[in-house]
């Protein structure tokens, strides 16, 4: 049975990737570097449908690759669809928010998400995400597009070279984390062991989360790619707790920034709803395929996609590839 799933899901995933590239190529004539993106000649219903299919495919590959769908959403949709980047970022925040909300309760019940760790970080990051969102909506689209390209290429570098530590060694918690009582126990599903954890470098972690909030609000890309290394490698939380807590922080950070976009009229249901629903359905399938897929293969595929989307965003922002 396991073998059969392996045989059938691998080509399926390969086809998902190919389909995604084909869709992006199809959407290529919609490119534009100026503030106003050239209008498309396709009927109105084509784009929400293409958006739904693209997000469904992104959802499938995002989970096994260990990356939030929002991180893929903005560079891909912003680069290859005829929507203005303002609306893409608004939808991107909602995609990241909906994904975080969908996974949050399960992670909390499973003890993989820590409120004591998440809440202080989320307080600072949600404040700075409002600043980021306001900045993002005030700056010219070309500047945001260029910065987005650089951020995405930075994420690619991070994905390629950053290390992960399953259970980092925290010899002694810092005084702030001790005062806040940031520690906990989680049951590791793989070994069945109860793992006691604590964190260090909390003041630096708080500063990093201030910066993460600005980026999340400005680019609408969620921030799981930055949250997890900050929690795991910098603060010393176990990898699974870092991933679970990251979702909880995201749900609060993206909520604050989403309100800014909503109040400024930068959320179009015609773009946001197919994206959210497609991503959620795709992520469900991705989660089911998690055990039968080879994570490293999917990760390489997603890195290639991100690299392509990052270069595209950078060149589009600079007006080189329009």
């Amino acid at each position, binding site marked *: 049975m396991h073998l059969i799933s392996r045989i059938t899901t691998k080509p399926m995933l390969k086809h998902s990737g190919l389909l995604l590239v084909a869709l992006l190529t199809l959407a290529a004539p919609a490119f534009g570097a100026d503030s106003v993106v050239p209008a498309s000649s396709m009927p109105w219903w084509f784009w929400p449908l293409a958006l739904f299919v693209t997000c469904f495919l992104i959802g499938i590959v995002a989970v096994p690759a260990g990356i939030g769908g929002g991180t893929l959403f903005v560079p891909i949709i912003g680069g290859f669809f005829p929507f203005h980047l*303002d609306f893409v970022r608004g939808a991107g925040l909602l995609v990241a928010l909906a994904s975080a909300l969908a996974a949050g309760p399960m992670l909390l019940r499973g003890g993989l998400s820590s409120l*004591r760790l998440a809440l202080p970080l989320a307080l600072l990051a949600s404040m700075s995400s409002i600043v980021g969102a306001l900045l993002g909506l005030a700056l010219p689209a070309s500047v945001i597009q260029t910065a987005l390209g650089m951020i995405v290429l930075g994420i690619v570098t991070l994905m390629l070279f950053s290390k992960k530590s399953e259970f980092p060694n925290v010899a002694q918690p810092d005084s702030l984390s001790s005062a806040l009582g940031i520690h906990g126990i989680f049951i590791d599903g793989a070994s069945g062991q109860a793992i006691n954890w604590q964190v260090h470098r909390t003041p630096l972690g708080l500063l990093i989360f201030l910066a993460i909030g600005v980026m999340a609000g400005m680019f609408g890309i969620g921030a799981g790619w930055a949250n997890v290394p900050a929690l795991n490698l910098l603060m010393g939380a176990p990898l699974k707790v870092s991933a679970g807590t990251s979702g909880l922080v995201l749900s609060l950070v993206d909520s604050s920034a989403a309100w800014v976009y*909503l109040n400024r009229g930068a959320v179009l249901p015609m773009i946001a709803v197919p994206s959210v629903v497609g991503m959620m359905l795709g992520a469900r399938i991705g989660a089911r395929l998690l055990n039968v897929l080879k994570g490293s293969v999917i990760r390489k595929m997603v890195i290639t996609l991100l690299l392509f989307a990052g270069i595209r965003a950078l060149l589009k922002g600079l007006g080189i590839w329009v």
Partner: protein
Amino acid sequence: MTNTNTPTNAQQQQLEALRYAQLLDWGARLGVVALIVSFAAYVFGVLTPHVPLEQLPTVWNLPVAAYLQQTATPTGWGWLKLAQKGDLSGLIGISILAGCSLPPLLGLIPLYLKRRDYIYATICALIITVLVLAASGVLTGGH
């Protein structure tokens, strides 16, 4: 020796997590259902949109300020007056999703106060304040 009447730190954390998870779960489900129902009513023509569907491809490529001007779409909470319109009704579900962290945060405060954890009760209150300010449009010039 452990006093069995006093919950341990791990048990207290679990209690907080369960309360937060339950309230978040319901809010998120409600938001997604509202989102799907309103969108179906929008695209299948049950509710007339504020911006005609055929006009969308000519305006969704504009910066948000130009879009709002061209379509006479209100900012801030102004959309509530037009919530019967197909496109703007979608913002109900989106608002529920963006606001569904508020009830779980409110639900945590009594738990923290009960165990005299005033720091975390304050942190929750501050996050709620940030979210409410963001939603109100006061910080963002939405009104």
